């Protein structure tokens, strides 16, 4: 019987400070590359992995790198608790443990051929980033694509190098609560950016990843744009501990976020009591 709890050793090959309390970690397998599925993907954008450091525990993280990249995965980690604090102390060549990927990921077949509005805030960017990489590689399968990305200050916006690169292929709308002198983007809530988005609402899909207040974005951007709840997908955050539907920490109503999610149709979440 396979021991699904057993994590595999990986090595840090790159770390990069992305903001005051956020770091990027590039992880490589001990030997060889990460396995690809029949579609050539190492994981489905939106899936998560469980990262552990013995002595500090295990926690779920979304993958930020391209799903076609088999030689490494990138994780973007905010210092928020015991484990992430310890991870932030690690350097190149340090080892940690990984198991996964887990969960469903974004519905890649469903979103094909549609206009895309991706909305995220702060540290919710990783799963969206991997989806953008996927869209760019399959650019002809998608119509218009927007990333609406908000943060507290310009320095809290992550993956700035990537944003420049992505801008060649998708439209990016940035907004911050507290601008600095050089800031040229929007200011305030994401709802202020609505005029910048030109989509065919009946053939558009929205993807969201972010904390509770991101639901505001849903109310203030997606509804006015006319995207129905059935075409809104949310990447949810819970305390996924076992990753395989046993431990019960991540349940919400009828669903296990670790297996049925973490990506849910908004219509589905809205009906749940939880």
């Amino acid at each position, binding site marked *: *019987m*396979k*021991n*699904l*709890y*057993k*994590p595999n*050793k990986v090595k840090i090959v790159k770390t990069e400070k992305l903001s005051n309390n956020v770091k990027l970690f590039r992880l490589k397998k001990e030997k060889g590359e990460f396995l690809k599925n029949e579609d050539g993907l190492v994981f489905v954008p939106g899936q998560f992995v469980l990262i552990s450091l*013995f*002595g*500090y*525990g*295990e*926690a779920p993280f979304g993958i930020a790198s391209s799903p076609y990249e088999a030689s490494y995965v990138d994780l973007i980690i905010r210092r*928020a*608790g*015991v*484990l*992430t604090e310890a991870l932030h102390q690690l350097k190149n060549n340090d*080892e940690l*443990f990984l198991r996964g990927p887990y969960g469903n990921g974004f519905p890649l077949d469903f979103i094909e051929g549609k206009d895309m509005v991706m909305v995220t805030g702060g540290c919710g960017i990783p799963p969206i980033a991997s989806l953008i990489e996927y869209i760019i590689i399959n650019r002809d399968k998608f119509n218009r694509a927007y990333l609406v990305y908000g943060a507290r200050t310009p320095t809290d916006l992550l993956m700035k190098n990537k944003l420049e690169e992505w801008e060649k292929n998708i439209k990016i709308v940035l907004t911050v609560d507290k601008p600095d002198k050089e800031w040229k983007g929007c200011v305030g809530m994401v709802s202020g950016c609505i005029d910048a988005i030109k989509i065919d609402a009946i053939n558009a899909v929205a993807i969201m990843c972010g*904390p*509770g207040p991101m639901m505001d974005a849903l109310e203030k951007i997606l509804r006015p744009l006319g995207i129905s709840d059935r075409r809104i997908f949310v990447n949810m*955050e*819970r*305390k996924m*501990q*076992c990753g*395989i*539907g*046993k*431990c*019960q*920490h991540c*349940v*919400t*109503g*009828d669903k296990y976020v670790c*297996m049925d999610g973490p990506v849910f149709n908004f219509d589905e979440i809205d009906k749940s*009591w*939880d």
Partner: protein
Amino acid sequence: MALVIEKKQIKNWLGELKKKFTVIDVKESILPPKQYFFPPKEEIFNFNCKSRKLDSPLYQEKLLLFGLDLSDLEAMTQLDEIMKKPNADFFYWQRREDSVLVGLSDVSVGVAPGGDIVLEKINAKQYQVLVLTDKGRKLADNKFFEQISKPQIKKYSAEENPHKEKFKKMLLDPEVLAEAVAWSKNHKIWDELNKKCLGCGICTYVCPLCHCFSIKDRVGLDESECTRCRQWDACTLPRFAKIAGGHNFHPSIKERYYNWFYHKFVRAYKEYGKAQCVACGRCVEYCPAGIKIGQVLGEITKDYEKSIQAK
């Protein structure tokens, strides 16, 4: 023909079994049989911080649990299913695979709900041996069991309180329970329980089917070795759905208690077609606040049925 064992021989049979198995008598045990396959705390990985080697402790003991009553047998059948689907739980099966369950019933059995062998009382001096699985068959050939042609079979029914009987009857229709609990989200009973429940988690520890857990790392003082442990958790405890950064998805007892019911009666029904409850009565007996889940279910179901009739 019936395979029987004399009551006074049971002890001797167990004595013989002890040569092959670690035999544990679980009759009237407060903690349910799950504790032997899913222990309150177990080491699942050892990590040597110097050699960077990761090992998983091997478990080789052969267990035989003796004396499970009908509700615990039913619970073990369900727990096996939960631990098998949709993903098999390695650490549970490592202990469970070679173990044997022997039931003991002083009431007439009807259809045995689980176990490998069940001893069913048929008269004051004899028990009928019900052999249910291959594992059971391997143990059935011994000098203590004998085939007799005209067994004297008496019917024994449970001397149970009416509360428990009513509760057992309710469990026969898990669909109604699922509908009623799902419907009851805004029922006043959850506010009452919010005040009454102490959020101690005892009900889940003594439940033969509750199986939630958390995984924690422990490091020795010299930091040379780290042990990853899995231990029982309880969805009614305050930190159960809390994430790093401090957000708690189930901040009040009301949500946590409702979630417990929702899992047992709604989600379990959707996943397995059954309620995750066998009316063993432990949670009622050991709840320090005196909450009776049979009564809670009864009240919800009654009001749910009224609401349907009103429509």
